């Protein structure tokens, strides 16, 4: 069987399949369905310096081949995570990565600083692209200058592997990727959700309390693949690809387009076992294609 190991900076994953922040809780929610230790990594829920109640209900709308969400970074804050959640998950035999959001540079930096001592958290994913809160970071993620400033502030206090999650709601995602690479990001992950909206025609109202929300699911895959391809030709740091991956074939498409690892997000809602099926499916694909290692197909698109 092919070698599935990949490295994201100094972080070596047993396979390229991780679960995406906000779609897999803290992992334990899925422990009844799969062996969590099979995963390449688990990226836990968006965490902020202070606790957040998130947005009022309704927070979700189903769309063609996808869904909109407007959760708004509900979480109990980094200190609660460190004291109460970390002890519960630290012994899961895979990499636990924390997704970090903030309303200011100091928020980001201080949250990252408080996570850095945690031995079993080898990396954080910097969310500069949450579309669902005014101060949710998307503002940071839509200009090179602000994106660079967040990475610079966090890099100064955080020594672990720093993955920066990019927003697709931009004119040129490649230039944002170059900007965060220049400030010392170890990797970029993309795409976060596309900003969308749903309307209830009969009631003449928005479906979501916040009117707009983040679009995810199979429908966004073509946009995500394109952006991974663009960023692959713009930066040297590893790319973690996500956006509408529903099965192993989708995951392979991202690897071929240049992603070194992938995140499974919305698909977890439809099949709580999809992540391990994707791992097995990638292995089967590599064997079928006569590849000895997943490395052989990363960025291997023939054009």
């Amino acid at each position, binding site marked *: 069987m092919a070698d599935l190991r990949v490295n994201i900076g100094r972080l070596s994953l047993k396979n390229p399949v991780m679960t995406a922040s906000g*779609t897999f809780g803290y992992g334990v929610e899925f422990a009844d369905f799969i062996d969590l230790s099979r995963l390449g990594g688990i990226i836990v829920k968006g965490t902020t310096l202070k606790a957040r109640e998130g947005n009022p209900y309704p927070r979700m709308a189903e769309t063609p081949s996808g869904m909109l969400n407007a959760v708004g970074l*509900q979480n109990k804050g980094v200190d609660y995570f460190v004291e109460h959640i970390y002890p519960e998950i630290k012994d899961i035999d895979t990499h636990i990565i924390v997704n970090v959001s903030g309303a200011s540079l100091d928020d980001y930096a201080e949250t990252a600083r408080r996570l850095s001592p945690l031995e079993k958290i080898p990396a954080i994913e910097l969310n500069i692209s949450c579309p669902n809160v005014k101060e949710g970071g998307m503002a940071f993620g839509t200009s090179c200058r602000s994106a660079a400033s967040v990475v610079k502030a966090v890099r100064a206090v955080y020594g672990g592997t720093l993955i920066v999650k990019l927003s697709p709601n931009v004119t040129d995602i490649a230039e944002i990727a170059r900007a965060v690479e220049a400030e010392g990001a170890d990797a970029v992950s993309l795409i976060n959700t596309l900003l969308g909206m749903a309307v209830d025609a009969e009631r003449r109202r928005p479906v979501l309390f916040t009117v707009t929300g983040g679009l995810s699911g199979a429908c966004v895959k073509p946009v995500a693949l394109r952006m991974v391809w663009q960023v692959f030709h713009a930066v040297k740091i590893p790319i973690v690809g996500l956006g509408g991956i529903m099965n192993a074939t989708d995951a392979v498409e991202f690897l071929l387009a240049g992603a070194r690892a992938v995140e499974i997000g919305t698909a977890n809602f439809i099949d709580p076992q999809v992540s391990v099926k994707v791992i097995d499916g990638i292995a089967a694909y590599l064997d079928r294609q006569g590849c000895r290692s997943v490395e052989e197909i990363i960025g291997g698109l023939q054009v």
Partner: protein
Amino acid sequence: MKKLISDLRVTENVALHDRYVLLKAAPADGTPLPEMLPGQFAELRVDGSPTTFLRRPISINYVDRAANEVWFLIQLVGDGTRQLATLRQGDTLNVVYPLGNGFSLPSGDERLLLVGGGVGTAPLLYLGSMLHEKEYAPHFLLGARSAGDVLQAEAFRRFGTVDITTEDGSAGERGYVTQHSLLQKEHFDRIYTCGPKPMMVAVARYARANGIACEVSLENTMACGVGACLCCVENTRDGHVCVCKEGPVFNIEKLLWQI
């Protein structure tokens, strides 16, 4: 309680009037059904509906241990539920279950009222059967728009006394459940309710006014069903909590309803 994802085989599809179907299903591999509590629900995968992306949360209507069957009472509201309604005997139904928390069962000698509205009566059948098993004599109060929307009345009668209200008076007393004469005549120690929110609010108000313990089962648009996506929140004394994981059953004292 361990959650499962499993393929069920549909054993029967019973059309109830034109807007509801009762799906009966058993594990395809013949294994016994898992333990399930009244009030818990399942996430049903919808196959073959291009406009449906997510699973549909459906409460557990009844568990027939003898037949190893679980029942789902489904109201046809959108493409997803309409697609589920097309399932026929022998078709596969993939479910993730059991999810959420059930109703808390009574202790000692309590008089129990189960109030359901519309398709919200679904979980009360399973609850009623459980209470009946424990030798309680539950009293069911079923509200509906009209006679055609009163569901499974016969099944309820097997487990206790049944009273009915309809808005148009076509069955039972005319009006809303909270207007039923029963509430003037009899006293209850505990109320379980599920149905449209305005109905549950009225029931909760009655319960609080009369110092009666009351649990409500909430419905909400859900994605994951396991507390991961945080989409289906209800605002409570503990802040936003997931209806799918902390609920769907809540004691009214936990909620922030204006009652």
